[in-house]
C-alpha cells in the first residue's frame, strides 16, 4: 500500500515515454500524418484501460495472477499467467534489443550489441532489486528532467518547423490509419497491462486515477514528439528509421549547439531503462508468485540473465527487430492486451449473474 498516486502516475507516463524511440513503425505507414494514428491510439487506449480498471474494481488490491486464479480456478489461471510471463518476456526482449540496436546503429557502430544488452539488463536488475516502490519514487524526478529536455528541443526546432508539412489532411486510406493506430495502441499504450501486476501495492482508486493520469501525461509527451518530428521532417519522415532522433540532427544554433543528438540518445536510454525495468519487475514478481516464492529478490538476477540471453538469441539484426515491430508485434500483443481481459470480464459478469440468479 506504499506507492502513492502521484508517483505511479508519473511512472506510467515514463513507461509510455519509452515508446519515443520506436515511433518509426507508425511513421512509414502514414508518413506525414503520423499524428493521426497516434491520436487515435491515445483515445482507444482509454477504452482498453477501462477494461483493466473494471477488473481492478471487481478485485481490488489483487494483482494479475490472483485475479486469474480467482476467475479461472487454479490450473487454468496458472496456464494463462505463464502465457503472460512469455508475453512480458517478449516485450522486454523487444525493448532491450531496440535500445541496444539503436545504440549500435547510431552512436557506437563498432561495439557488439551483446555488450549493450548485458550492461543494460544489469542496470535494470539493480533497479528491480530496489523494488517497484523506489522505482516509482525516482520517476517524478526523472520525468521532469526528461520533459524539460523535450520542451527545450521543441523550442530549438521551432525555427525549422513548417505548417505546410501537415497539410494534406486525411489523405490516407482508413485501413492505413487503422493499421498504424493498432500498432501504436499495442506498443506503448497496450503494454500498460504490466501495471496490473503492481495493483496490489497501491490503493485501488489511487491506482485507477494514476493509470488515467499517467496515460494522459505520457500521451501528451508522445504527441509532442511526433508533432515535432512531422513538422520538421515533413514527407521524409516515412523513410527515416528513428524520426525523433533524425530531427535532433538539424538543430543548429550559431554552429555551437549543433549535433546534440547523442545527448538525446542517452535520454532514450534512460526511458528504455525505465520501461524495461518495470516489465522486468513484473516478470520477476509473476514468476515468483507462480513458483510459490514469497519474495522475488532471489531470482531477480537469474531472470535478468535469462532475459539478456533471450534478447541476444531472438533478434539478429536491427532490421529484424523493425520487421517484428511493424508486422507481428501488434498481432502478438492483441490477445494479451485486449482479448483475454475482455474474456475475463465476460466470465466475471456471467458468474455474477449466475450468483444473482441463485
Amino acid at each position: 500500500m506504499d506507492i502513492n498516486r502521484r508517483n505511479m502516475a508519473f511512472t506510467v507516463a515514463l513507461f509510455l515515454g519509452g515508446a519515443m524511440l520506436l515511433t518509426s513503425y507508425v511513421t512509414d505507414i502514414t508518413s506525414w500524418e503520423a499524428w493521426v494514428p497516434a491520436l487515435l491510439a491515445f483515445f482507444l487506449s482509454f477504452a482498453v484501460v477501462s477494461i483493466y480498471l473494471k477488473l481492478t474494481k471487481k478485485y481490488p488490491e489483487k494483482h494479475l495472477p490472483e485475479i486469474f486464479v480467482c476467475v479461472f480456478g487454479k490450473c487454468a489461471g496458472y496456464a494463462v499467467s505463464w502465457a503472460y510471463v512469455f508475453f512480458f518476456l517478449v516485450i522486454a526482449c523487444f525493448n532491450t534489443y531496440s535500445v541496444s540496436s539503436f545504440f549500435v546503429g547510431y552512436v557506437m557502430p563498432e561495439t557488439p550489441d551483446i555488450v549493450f544488452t548485458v550492461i543494460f539488463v544489469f542496470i535494470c536488475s539493480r533497479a528491480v532489486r530496489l523494488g517497484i516502490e523506489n522505482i516509482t519514487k525516482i520517476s517524478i524526478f526523472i520525468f521532469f528532467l526528461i520533459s524539460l529536455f523535450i520542451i527545450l528541443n521543441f523550442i530549438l526546432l521551432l525555427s525549422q518547423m513548417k505548417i505546410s508539412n501537415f497539410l494534406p489532411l486525411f489523405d490516407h486510406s482508413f485501413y492505413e490509419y487503422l493499421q498504424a493506430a493498432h500498432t501504436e495502441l499495442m506498443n506503448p499504450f497496450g503494454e500498460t497491462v504490466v501495471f496490473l501486476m503492481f495493483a496490489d501495492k497501491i490503493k485501488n482508486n489511487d491506482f485507477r486515477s494514476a493509470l488515467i493520469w499517467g496515460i494522459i501525461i505520457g500521451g501528451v509527451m508522445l504527441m509532442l514528439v511526433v508533432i515535432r518530428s512531422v513538422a520538421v521532417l515533413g514527407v521524409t519522415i516515412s523513410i527515416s528509421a528513428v524520426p525523433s532522433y533524425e530531427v535532433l540532427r538539424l538543430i543548429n544554433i550559431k554552429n555551437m549547439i549543433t549535433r546534440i543528438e547523442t545527448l538525446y540518445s542517452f535520454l532514450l536510454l534512460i526511458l528504455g531503462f525505465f520501461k524495461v525495468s518495470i516489465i522486468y519487475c513484473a516478470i520477476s514478481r509473476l514468476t515468483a508468485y507462480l513458483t510459490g516464492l514469497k519474495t522475488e529478490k532471489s531470482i531477480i538476477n537469474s531472470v535478468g540473465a535469462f532475459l539478456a540471453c533471450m534478447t541476444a538469441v531472438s533478434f539478429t539484426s536491427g532490421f529484424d527487430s523493425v520487421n517484428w515491430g511493424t508486422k507481428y508485434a501488434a498481432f502478438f500483443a492483441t490477445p494479451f492486451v485486449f482479448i483475454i481481459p475482455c474474456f475475463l470480464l465476460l466470465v466475471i459478469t456471467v458468474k455474477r449473474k449466475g450468483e444473482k440468479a441463485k
Partner: protein
Amino acid sequence: MIITLAAFLYIWLSDFKNTKGNIKERAVFLLLFTLSLALAILISAGVKTISPIKAIQTLFDFLHISY
C-alpha cells in the same frame, strides 16, 4: 562471449549463497540458472536460429496474420 558468460557465472555464484534457506527458492534459481546458461552457451556458439520470437513469426506467417 566467454567473458559475458564469466560475468553471469560470477553474479549467480554470489546469489546462490543467499538462497540457502528456502529449498523452493533454490530450485527455481537453479532452473533459471541452467536455462540461461544453456542459452548463453548457444549464443557463444553462435547458434542464433532457435528463438521463440522467430517461432511466433513463422507461426504468424503460416496463418498469414501480418501487416
